[in-house]
């Protein structure tokens, strides 16, 4: 994978259902653990630039009888509440809209996000 790897934390420090907002290579990025898999989304919403990764992590209605599902797989943007699939960045209501995703690698127990065209960042913040 092209780009710089940035260590975010130890995998054991980010439990399923949790997230961290970090600054990597000058970008604000949300790193999520969904059921043991790690994902990273750009914390700038494709709708209007809002804090996409800082809203509720939740599920949603999945059928016409108000069946609820996908719990923990969706993040709602903190601004206008659009729902995004954490794994793919796809907007649930309009799949043509996608949040930017970054590859995540877990090696030797470390969660690393691959950010293109950057030098290794310091000062990771929660």
């Amino acid at each position, binding site marked *: 994978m092209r780009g710089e790897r940035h260590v975010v934390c130890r995998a054991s420090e980010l439990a399923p259902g949790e997230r961290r907002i970090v600054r990597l290579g000058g970008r604000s990025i949300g790193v999520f653990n969904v059921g043991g898999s790690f994902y990273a989304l750009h914390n700038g919403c494709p709708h*209007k*630039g*809002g804090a996409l990764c*800082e809203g509720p992590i939740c599920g949603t209605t999945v059928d016409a009888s108000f069946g609820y599902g996908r719990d923990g797989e969706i993040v709602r943007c903190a*601004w206008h*509440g659009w729902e995004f699939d954490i794994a793919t960045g796809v907007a649930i209501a309009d799949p043509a809209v996608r949040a930017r995703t970054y590859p995540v690698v877990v090696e030797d127990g470390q969660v690393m996000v691959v950010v293109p065209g950057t030098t290794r960042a310091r000062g990771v913040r929660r």
Partner: protein
Amino acid sequence: MIDCDVHNSWHSAEVLLPYLPPAFREYLQRGELPGPRGSFPHAHRPWLHPEGFMRYDAVPASGAAAGSEYELLREQVLDRYDVDYAILTGDEAIEASTLANPYYANALTSAYNDWLVQEWLPADPRLKGSLVVAPQDPHGAAAEIRRMGDHDDIVQVLMSSGSQRPYGDPFFHPIWEAAAELDLPIAVHLGGQGGLNANPIGCGPTTFFWETHALLCETGMAHLASTIAHGVFERWPNARLILVECGVAWVPPILWRLDEDYRALRKETPWLRRLPSEYAHEHIRMTTQPLEQPRSPEALWPALDDIGARDMLMFASDYPHWDFEDPRFLRLPESWREPVLDGNARDVYGLPARDRVSEGAGR
């Protein structure tokens, strides 16, 4: 840049207690409330937002209500966007318009105005205030405008768009008269849909929040038509109506319809001397948020240009509400940027030009 709709909130409506007359203080302390202790007395609308009403990242670290702490409001609005002025529009205070008891409603809005002037406006020279009044008590509202309207940092009168009847109706003329006397525009902000104000939607209540939210501009249409038709702008030549959060794209077609019908039936309103669209261009302003989003962004502008909206539109963010608009994501034709982001609001509110601000405010 001027942001015409920034909501200063409270963590508990009990902040109003010291400003309420004793008779009404008891209502707030021991009386029935629409929610837990500290909630603001009002009748709620029949549609509830399924995700709450606030931007999640606008909740202060203390856990207090979004918009209730000046420091975070400064960081997320004033400093982030280099705002010269933010027009504070309160939060729940305009909902007093839903209460049947006009005396209680008037006491609550007066208490809010005192709290605003004492606790918010001194915090920052960039903050300007809106005097909230209870429209169901037009004489009380007029008295409130005369009591507080000459405060240096008060720039407009504010009422909810939900109302018992359209605001041009002679029932409300005492409010227009007092505002004209103090040379203050009257802003009408989306809200107050419930209780006494039973008809915010034509045909009666819709069902879902998003469905309804898209239609609430209907109240703006009625206030626009009514203030023009009843001759508010003939009777008080300095009167101005500012539609806040009532939508924008509907304005040209409604004005076109009003012009056409007025031409045919002018005799019903003999006090008018100009076309409705001419009164609107001179006396009515609309704030941008939520600016409609056509499939091709440029589709918005030709109709607006036809009514001269470049002189009528004023930027608003609606911070910290869920439908907040970031000025950096606002797509405006280049020649509209200065008037919409700054000049129009400066004119209507009589605010000093930018360089004088930075000198005066010493920042």
